C-alpha cells in the first residue's frame, strides 16, 4: 500500500510541473499586465512597481525564482493586494471554500446515496422513477440557474434565509444545496446503476440462500461493490466542485477562494494566479489519491495490481 501511495505521489510531480509551467507560459503570453488597468501611473512609477515585483527580469529567471520560493512554501506577494501575500489571502479564504465544498459533497452523498439505493432496490417502480426524474432535473438545471432561483424563492420571496453572507449556520444551507445538487443527482444515478449491477450478481443469491436478511444483503453484500462507481466519481467530482464554487461564491457573495481565482485572472495578478492554480492542482491530486486508496480498500481485486 505504501509503495502504491509513493508511486502515485511520484507520478503527481510531473503533473504539477506541467500545470505550473503551462499556467506560467499562458498568463505571460496574454496581453496586459498586473498594472495595466491602473490609470494615472507614470512610466517611472510603473517601472518602480515592476522592479519591486521583479517583473523587469527575464522570464526564465522569474520562472525559476517562483519555483525556488514556492518550494520553500512562499507563494509571493499579491500584485493586486500589495499589502497581502498570496499565502495570507489563501489562508483567509481557503477555509471558507473548503467548508462550502465539504458541506456540498456531504449533502450530495446523503441525497445521492439515499435516492440511488432506494431506486436501485425496486427498479421500474414509482420509488425508482420519482428519485431518478429528480436526479435528471438536478443534472439538467445548471448551478447558476438553481442558485439564483433558490435565492429568489427562499431569500427574497419567503425570506427564510438571508440573501448573502457567510456568518450564521443558516447562511450555509442555500450555497451548499446549490453546489451539491448536481453532484447528488449524479451520485444517485451512479448508485442506482451500481446497486442494480451488484444485486443481479450470483453472490447476492448465495447470500439469500444463507438466510441473510434483505437489509443485511444490501449493506453487507451489495453496498461495497455497488458504491465503487460512486467512489471513482468522487475524484473528478472534487475538481468539478472547485470550479463550481466560483459560481456559487459569486451568486451568494461568499468570501471564498473561487472569486479570488477569477478576479486574479482578470487582474493579471500573476502570483495569485500561479498560487491558486497550483493549490487547486495539489488538491485534485490529493483527492484523486484518496479516492484510489479508498477504492483499493473496498475492492480486494484491485489491491493485487
Amino acid at each position: 500500500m505504501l509503495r502504491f501511495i509513493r508511486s502515485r505521489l511520484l507520478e503527481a510531480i510531473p503533473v504539477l510541473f506541467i500545470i505550473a509551467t503551462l499556467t506560467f507560459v499562458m498568463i505571460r503570453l496574454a496581453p496586459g499586465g498586473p498594472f495595466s488597468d491602473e490609470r494615472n501611473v507614470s512610466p517611472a512609477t510603473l517601472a518602480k512597481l515592476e522592479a519591486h515585483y521583479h517583473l523587469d527580469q527575464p522570464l526564465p529567471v522569474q520562472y525559476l525564482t517562483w519555483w525556488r520560493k514556492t518550494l520553500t512554501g512562499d507563494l509571493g506577494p499579491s500584485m493586486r493586494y500589495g499589502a497581502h501575500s498570496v499565502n495570507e489571502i489563501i489562508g483567509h479564504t481557503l477555509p471558507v471554500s473548503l467548508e462550502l465544498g465539504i458541506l456540498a459533497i456531504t449533502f450530495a452523498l446523503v441525497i445521492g446515496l439515499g435516492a440511488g439505493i432506494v431506486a436501485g432496490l425496486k427498479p421500474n417502480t414509482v420509488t425508482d422513477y420519482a428519485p431518478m426524474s429528480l436526479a435528471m432535473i438536478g443534472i439538467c438545471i445548471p448551478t447558476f440557474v438553481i442558485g439564483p432561483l433558490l435565492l429568489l424563492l427562499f431569500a427574497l420571496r419567503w425570506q427564510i434565509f438571508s440573501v448573502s453572507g457567510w456568518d450564521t449556520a443558516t447562511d450555509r444551507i442555500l450555497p451548499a444545496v446549490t453546489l451539491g445538487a448536481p453532484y447528488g443527482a449524479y451520485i444517485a444515478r451512479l448508485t442506482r446503476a451500481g446497486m442494480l449491477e451488484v444485486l443481479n450478481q450470483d453472490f447476492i443469491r448465495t447470500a439469500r440462500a444463507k438466510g441473510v436478511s434483505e437489509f443485511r444483503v444490501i449493506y453487507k453484500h451489495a453496498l461495497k461493490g455497488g458504491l465503487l462507481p460512486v467512489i471513482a466519481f468522487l475524484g473528478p467530482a472534487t475538481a468539478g466542485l472547485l470550479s463550481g464554487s466560483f459560481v456559487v461564491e459569486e451568486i451568494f457573495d461568499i468570501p471564498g477562494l473561487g472569486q479570488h481565482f477569477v478576479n486574479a485572472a482578470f487582474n493579471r495578478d500573476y502570483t495569485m494566479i500561479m498560487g491558486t492554480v497550483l493549490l487547486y492542482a495539489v488538491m485534485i491530486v490529493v483527492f484523486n489519491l484518496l479516492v484510489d486508496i479508498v477504492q483499493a480498500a473496498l475492492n480486494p481485486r484491485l489491491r493485487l495490481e
Partner: protein
Amino acid sequence: MDQIDKSTSLWSDALRRLCRNRLALFGAVFLLLILLLSAFAPWLTPYEYFEQDLVLGAIGPCREHWFGTDTLGRDLFTRVSYGGRISLLVGACATSVSLTIGVLWGTISGYSGGHVDRVMMRVVDIMYALPFTIFVILLMVCFDDVEVRWIDPQLFTLLLLFVAIGAVEWLTMARIVRGQVLTLKQQAFIEAAVTLGLSRRRIILRHLVPNVLGPIIVYTTLTIPSVMLLEAFLSFLGLGVQPPMSSWGLLINEGADAMEEYPWMLIFPGLFLSAALFSLNFLGDGLRDALDPKSAREQ
C-alpha cells in the same frame, strides 16, 4: 448471410427502439423546435436582439413582448432566440472539435498499438488529472482582449470558445474510440477468416462499422449538453460572448442580477437552457438504450 441481415437491420432496430422511448422522442422533437426557433429568429420576431427601448425599460411578459423585456428594454424573446443560436452553435462546433481530436487520437492510438498506444493513452491519463475548467477560464480571460484585426472580435471569442472547450472534452472520446478500434481490429480479423464468399470490405462496412459507431454516436450526443453547459458557465462568469450579443449563459447572468424586480429575465433563459439540456440528455440516453442495449442496463 444471417450475419449480414442482422447488421442491416441494426439501424432500423435501433430506430424502432428509439421511437418506442417516449422521453427520447420528446427530447428530439423539443430540440428540433429550439433549433427552428433559433434558426428562424430574425423572421419570428419584429425586434432586433440589440434594439433598446430605455423608456420602456424592463416590463413583464405581455402581448407585444412574449417573454417581457430586459432592463434596457430589449425584447427577451428575441434575445433568447438569438442566444440559442450561440449556445447551439458552440455546442455543435465545440463538440465537433472534441470529436475530431478524440477520433484522431483514439484511432491512431488503437490502430498503432504497442508503445505508441501505451504512450498516447498515458498522456490521456495524465491529462485527466489536469484541472481543465481552470485552464479554460484562464484561456478565456487571458486571450479575450487580444487585439485582432483580421477577424471580428466577437467571432474571435467564439472561435476561442470552440477551441478551449473542444480541447477539454476530447479525452473520454479518445478512450471510447480507441476501445472501438481495438474491437474492430479483432473482429475484422476473425470475421474475415471465418466468412467465405463475402468480401472483407462488405463485412467491415455493413456489419462492423455500424456496431462500433454506436457508442461514438451516443457519447457525441451526450457531449453536446456538457459542452453547452460549459459555454453557459463561462458566459455566466462573463467570459463568453459579450453584450449586446446574447447567449443563454449571458442572459442568465443578467437575469440573476435583476431577478429581484424582474424575475422573468432569469426564468426564461434558464428554462430554455435547462430544457435544451434535458432534451439532449434524454435523446442521448434513448440513443444509448437503442444502439447499445448492453450498456443501457448498466447505466
